[in-house]
């Protein structure tokens, strides 16, 4: 039990044991909750221990056995990229499992044991997926992951959850069909399902581009990139909050992982237009994702849309890296991929934290409508503090981790702008502007999210009577907040590790990215940045005004808080209360109105809804045709003859006598 792969196996077995235990303890739900939580926590810790040596050394571990099927080897490969994914998954799973031990009590009596089962199965399949090195097993685990998470989405069983789950099911499977097609093309050329044989192919030309496009769209649907994102803001918020955290924090990254795996690892990123395509889709996802997040009033949906944004930012880094590989610019490739990997790690941390924070709010107030919240900072101070750190990190504010990864993304795009190819010179700075726009919109979005939830006065009775979340939930959130600060301030130690992962994919020497505590994008002349210095200054400089205020205290009285805020006589006016629809969303909604309209016209959900509606309309018009033309004709004919026959029944006694006589005469004539 000491090689990384064995430890990883132990971690997966722990998750499976948790799933099974949860299933067996269905009658004793509190035990089932504890069982799945503790095994998840242990599995996560073991996963971290398994992945760290591989990450730090940059080596690759392989294991191959025949497995039960003749056509596919069971191959596991723990390379630095897979180790990074295992690390990210394990960290978040450990924290979320700790959180779940308290949070899932909310679901006691409503099948909490089933939640533990699907949750552990979901995690186990993700971990197995990222290390599997054979297309067949890769797809099996991919399906397992989609199905287990589908059951988590529909867990609440209300109408919105079921319909969101159905949309998720459809899009996830449409995606996996495309991925299967991509793998099938590779298989038909190599004759073997092992990824190693795909790597040895060195496919080029239109066939390689076809494979890449299939995989890009297929995995992109999983990653939630625009325009295949419509399921994400519906499915992620429907799941229980710790599952939302895992889905937004790591499951979408499996999509990004797939794009990197096929585009760079298997196909070698041979054409530079692939990278430009990924970059463009990433930039559009980033801007549109955050713009739509801004318009939301449901806190969890806002967070889910912001996942679309962050996947976009990661894809921008991946795109820059792919361009660098294709154009033989090793530094650009290294910095672009470094930025992508760093942001992948960071996003898992802060989006996980924010979803756990939203879950804590939901746990205490039973609402995620921001118009019903407010004033929670005084009632849930620890949750508020952790959420604020997450919000600052996701807005890329220095000195937290989001800033470092976005800084590297900017630097990658900047060095792209300094190349000689006109397309790259154009694409780099355009990407930087879109990233800047994204950053400003994200700030607006998270000022709104924090401000409406935690600041001001409570806007409902639930919010007014809220109290701090249970201890395990608070500890989980604080752990993630601490991790965010570490990943930010310790950037000079994290970045070289990410550079090693990038180097393992570009097959070149590791790019120098840090000396001492100073970061630089390969070339110190282009830029350099010391996060510890910025941190120290940002913490020390506010001391100056604090000393100034304290020194000039004189006869000044202490701070006094009390009474209502000044409202200029509009205190009872509902329109003046800060609301989700009004804050920043209203002015920006008007200024960016065309981009909001795009959502409705381009959204595959609404397009398919319109198509379905057309079909329904057509069939509702076709279906009565038979009735109208044939059945109705017969009915009318019968009625018409009935009316004619009515004339026989005259009501006169003498006429009836005449009928009797006439009938007798006719019968006599017939008889004779």
């Amino acid at each position, binding site marked *: 039990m000491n090689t990384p792969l064995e430890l990883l196996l132990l971690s997966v077995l722990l998750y499976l044991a948790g799933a099974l235990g949860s299933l067996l303890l269905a009658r004793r739900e509190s035990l089932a909750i504890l069982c799945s939580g503790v095994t998840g926590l242990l599995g996560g810790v073991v996963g971290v221990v398994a992945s760290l040596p591989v990450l730090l050394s940059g080596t690759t571990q392989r294991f191959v056995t025949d497995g039960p099927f003749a056509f596919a080897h069971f191959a596991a490969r723990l390379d630095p990229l897979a180790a990074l994914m295992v690390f990210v998954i394990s960290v978040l799973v450990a924290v979320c499992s700790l959180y779940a031990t308290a949070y899932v009590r909310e679901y006691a009596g409503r099948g909490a044991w089933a939640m533990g089962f699907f949750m552990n199965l979901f995690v186990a399949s993700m971990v197995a997926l990222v290390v599997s090195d054979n297309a067949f097993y890769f797809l099996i685990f991919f399906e397992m992951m989609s199905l287990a998470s589908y059951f988590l989405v529909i867990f609440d069983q209300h109408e919105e959850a079921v319909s969101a789950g159905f949309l998720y099911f459809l899009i996830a499977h449409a995606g996996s069909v495309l991925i299967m097609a991509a793998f099938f093309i590779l298989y038909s050329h190599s004759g073997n399902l092992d990824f190693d044989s795909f790597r040895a192919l060195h496919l080029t030309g239109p066939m390689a581009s076809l494979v890449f496009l299939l995989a890009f769209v297929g995995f992109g649907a999983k990653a939630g990139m625009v325009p295949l994102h419509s399921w994400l803001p519906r499915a992620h918020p429907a799941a229980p909050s710790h599952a939302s955290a895992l889905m937004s924090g790591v499951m979408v990254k499996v999509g990004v992982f797939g794009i990197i795996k096929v585009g760079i690892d298997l196909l070698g990123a041979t054409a530079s237009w692939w990278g430009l395509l990924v970059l463009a889709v990433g930039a559009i996802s980033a801007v549109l994702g955050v713009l739509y997040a801004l318009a939301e009033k449901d806190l969890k949906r806002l967070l889910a849309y912001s996942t679309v944004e962050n996947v976009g930012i990661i894809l921008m880094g991946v795109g820059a890296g792919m361009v660098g590989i294709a154009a033989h610019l090793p530094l650009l490739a290294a910095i672009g991929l470094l930025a992508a990997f760093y942001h992948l790690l960071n996003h898992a941390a802060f989006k996980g934290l924010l979803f756990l924070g939203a879950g804590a709010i939901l746990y205490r107030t039973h609402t995620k409508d921001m118009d019903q919240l407010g004033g929670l900072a005084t009632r849930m101070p620890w949750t508020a503090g952790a959420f604020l750190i997450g919000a600052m990190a996701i807005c890329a504010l220095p000195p937290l981790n989001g800033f470092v990864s976005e800084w590297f993304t900017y630097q990658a795009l900047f060095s792209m702008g300094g190349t000689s190819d006109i397309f790259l010179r154009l694409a780099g700075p355009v990407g930087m502007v879109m990233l800047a726009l994204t950053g400003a919109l994200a700030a607006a979005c998270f000022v709104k999210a924090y401000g409406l939830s935690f600041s001001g006065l409570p806007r409902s009775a639930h919010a007014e009577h809220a109290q701090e979340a249970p201890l395990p939930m608070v500890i989980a959130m604080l752990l993630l907040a601490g991790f965010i600060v570490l990943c930010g301030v310790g950037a000079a130690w994290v970045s070289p590790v990410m550079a090693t992962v990038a180097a393992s994919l570009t097959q070149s020497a590791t790019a120098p990215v840090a000396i001492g505590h100073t970061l630089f994008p390969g070339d110190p002349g282009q830029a350099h940045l010391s996060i510890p210095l910025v941190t120290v200054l940002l913490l020390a400089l506010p001391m100056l005004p604090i000393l100034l205020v304290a020194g000039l205290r004189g006869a000044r009285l202490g701070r006094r808080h009390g009474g209502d805020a000044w*409202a200029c006589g509009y205190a009872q006016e509902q329109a003046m209360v800060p609301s989700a629809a009004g804050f920043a969303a209203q*002015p920006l909604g008007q200024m960016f109105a065309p981009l909001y309209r795009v959502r409705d016209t381009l959204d595959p959900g609404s397009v398919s809804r319109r198509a379905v509606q057309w079909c329904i309309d057509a069939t509702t018009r076709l279906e009565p045709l038979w009735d109208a033309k044939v059945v109705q004709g017969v009915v009318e004919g019968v009625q018409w003859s009935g009316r004619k026959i009515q004339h026989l029944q005259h009501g006169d006694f003498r006429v009836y006598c005449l009928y009797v006589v006439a009938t007798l005469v006719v019968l006599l004539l017939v008889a004779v």
Partner: protein
Amino acid sequence: MPSFDLLCLAVLQAVVLLAIAPLMTGVSRMIRARMHSRRGPGVLQDYRDIVKLLKRQDVAPASAGFVFQATPYVLLGAMLLLAMALPVFTRHSPVGAAADLITFAYVFALARFFFALSGLDSGSSFAGIGASREVTMGVLVEPTMILSLVVVALVEGSTNLGSMSASIAGGYLQAPMAILLAMAAFAFTVFIEMGKLPFDMAEAEQELQEGPLTEYSGASLAVLKLGLGLKKIVLAQFLLGVFLPFGNLDTFTAGDIALAVFALPAKLLAIFVLAGLIENSMARGRYMLTSRVTWIGFGCAVLAFVFYLTGL
């Protein structure tokens, strides 16, 4: 870590900029008064205001939370960081490891984040509207700011403000048209960020950009006013330091030092007088139509980028 001498220089320039901040905002007020045909309060009024406020008690609504209390200090701290890292007297930045244009943009974002959040955190509906406008302006301004600086950075091959400044001061303008247009676009964003008409009129209207100030009082208001004043100086010096570093030190000789010490207030004064003149010849625009005006600045920056691409 920067050397001890450079750190002293950094602290010195931050202190100098902080000390002259109320003077420069006082000059703005005086220009406005004169253009309104008023006598005005005199250029030292802002010092008197701040000293008076520092003696007063802090009073805040019951709903105000810890973000509200922390914001004045965070804002002033962030601006002091920028003041330390800017090239002020010298051509290179004394704290090069913090003087990156992206770092600058995001430290401004940090200040904006807290300033806007303090508006919501006060619980006042007017401050909330001010916060909404503050973040909206950020969305309209930041892309232009980044693009105009990136054009210069691309010309000079570095995103470090000190390197950019030194390259421009060194006289080798490689793409003069692009740099001039980028300077125009950047000056436009600086003008907006300084909180000027037609985008803002902080002295009169509570709900505008300085709206989050509504609930502040006493010492907190004094610190916040200092911070906002310093923000204006830092923005002006950002423009001067990157695009017009003429007169800044290259070598530490007595003549050069005297020139730099003289050039700094003269250039800042010129910027503030110019901004004051433009501001007071404007009418206030409708807030919802602001985006139509900011397109001019963005268009200017795009043009600068096109000129850079074509090598003009």
